[in-house]
């Protein structure tokens, strides 16, 4: 695998081979499949009942039905999207298989594209049952958001990939000692992206930070849709623009970290 081969053609065949590799892995391990379903279901049940309780006791939430549970579902798209990407990458580190891939004709862009597809597959396995559970238990139909849901989803998944690409580069460069970043970095975004409350709640100076994060636009957009019944196109366009910058920057960082790993011999050790 060479970063310099980026200019050559992208092979769907090789991307398919990597997806097949992860698919074999998923099918071979029921705990992996169960985990995909377990956490999203737990999340939606916990927050769903909380929302039911608040709705019975507060006028605002009665009017803004679904904002909490909607936020939980969108947050899971963001968080599980990144985990789906990063865990597939970590599987290669855990299996000590990265050297085999690096020595194969697989290009970095193809590797990253296969991880993106796997994050979608893993997300579908985890989040679709979660949305059905929300519909069944709490009568919240996230699909009723209609076309705006696609805009929210795309923006969140693009951010999750950017974070996934960046943390994968860090693990590549620093070994499994950096693995904890995979699990924790997204939680640093949680309070700033205003998942469960509007941006206006934050102090003025922190609002600038919040608006630098694309997920903030998705969560604000969802609240605008559910509370004011307005789809904020402007918010979505701004989020797409920031996401485009983030994706390019994360890919550039990944290549730089890969080059640094080659320089320092990290690809040979790959361990702690």
């Amino acid at each position, binding site marked *: 695998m060479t970063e310099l081969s980026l200019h050559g053609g992208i092979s769907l065949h090789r991307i398919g081979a990597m997806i097949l590799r992860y698919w074999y892995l998923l099918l071979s391990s029921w705990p992996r499949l169960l985990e995909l379903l377990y956490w999203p279901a737990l999340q939606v049940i916990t927050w769903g009942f909380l929302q039911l309780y608040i709705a019975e006791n507060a006028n605002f939430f009665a009017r803004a039905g679904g904002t909490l549970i909607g936020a939980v579902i969108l947050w899971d798209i963001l968080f599980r999207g990144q985990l789906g990407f990063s865990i597939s990458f970590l599987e290669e580190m855990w299996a000590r298989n990265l050297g085999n891939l690096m020595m194969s*004709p697989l290009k970095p862009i193809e590797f990253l594209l296969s991880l993106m597809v796997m994050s979608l597959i893993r997300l579908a396995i985890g989040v679709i049952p979660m949305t059905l559970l929300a519909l069944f238990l709490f009568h919240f139909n996230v699909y009723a958001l209609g076309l705006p849901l696609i805009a929210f989803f795309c923006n969140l998944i693009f951010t999750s990939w950017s974070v996934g690409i960046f943390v994968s580069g860090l693990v590549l460069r620093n070994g499994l000692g950096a693995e904890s970043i995979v699990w924790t970095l997204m939680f640093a975004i949680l309070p700033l992206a205003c998942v469960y409350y509007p941006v206006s709640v934050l102090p003025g100076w922190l609002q600038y930070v919040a608006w630098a994060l694309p997920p903030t636009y998705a969560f604000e957009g969802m609240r605008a849709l559910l509370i004011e019944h307005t789809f904020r196109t402007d918010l979505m366009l701004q989020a797409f623009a920031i996401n485009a910058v983030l994706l390019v920057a994360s890919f550039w960082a990944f290549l730089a970290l890969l080059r640094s790993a080659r320089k320092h011999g990290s690809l040979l050790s790959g361990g702690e």
Partner: protein
Amino acid sequence: MTENDKASSRPTVADRSSSAAIAVDHLVKVYKQTRAVDDISFSLPRGSITGLLGGNGAGKTTTIAMIMGLVLPTSGRVQVLGHRVPEESAAVLGRMNFESPYVDMPMRLTVRQNLTVFGKLYAVKNLSDRIAKLAEDLDLADFIDRANGKLSAGQKTRVALAKALINQPELLLLDEPTASLDPDTADWVRAHLERYRRDNNATILLASHNMLEVERLCDRVIIMKRGRIEDDDTPEAIMARYNRTTLEEVFLDVARGRVNGAQEAVR
């Protein structure tokens, strides 16, 4: 033929390196204060088997890793199958392969699944036929649908070799190919490598601590110590030069810094 004609038909350094399977030129790798590889140069003709010998920390693995493009040299250049590495790696990665104790095959995937994935990565045509041929050649049939993690060390080595041969590479890099194998399996692997080289005119570079293996397989030996090349010749010539009857004795002389009369002559 005139002298001018002779001169023009004589291969230049560039010609030699482009026709060689591997050409390493003044290669240096420095990790912080350590010179892991210290200004080494060699060129391996196509179809040859070369052994890279040396104690732990001699620089064998780093040298092979630089040839593979996994480690960037501090200075110097590497050319593989006529292309510069890592700059033009994309042109050669599909034509080479490797086996190393530093990597594993995914444990939860079956042998067949692993070979299928790598076969697709290398765009192997008629992949199922190729896997069937490898299963027959390397005696994998009994456990081809078993998870890689449930195999014995010998079986895993055969699977790793099958992966290394999946694309019928022109160049095969092997780091300790028979480490942790019992003598029977190790002998069997060596015989297979010899047959593969003969049938495919492949070039093989192998790093090994097993001197008998190197004596049996290699038509050339490069001995490394502290990142430098101590000697480079046929096994017979090296043993004669050190006035020894086995490569193991030569290895011990080099490792322990014993300088005899014959070695003085080398220097």
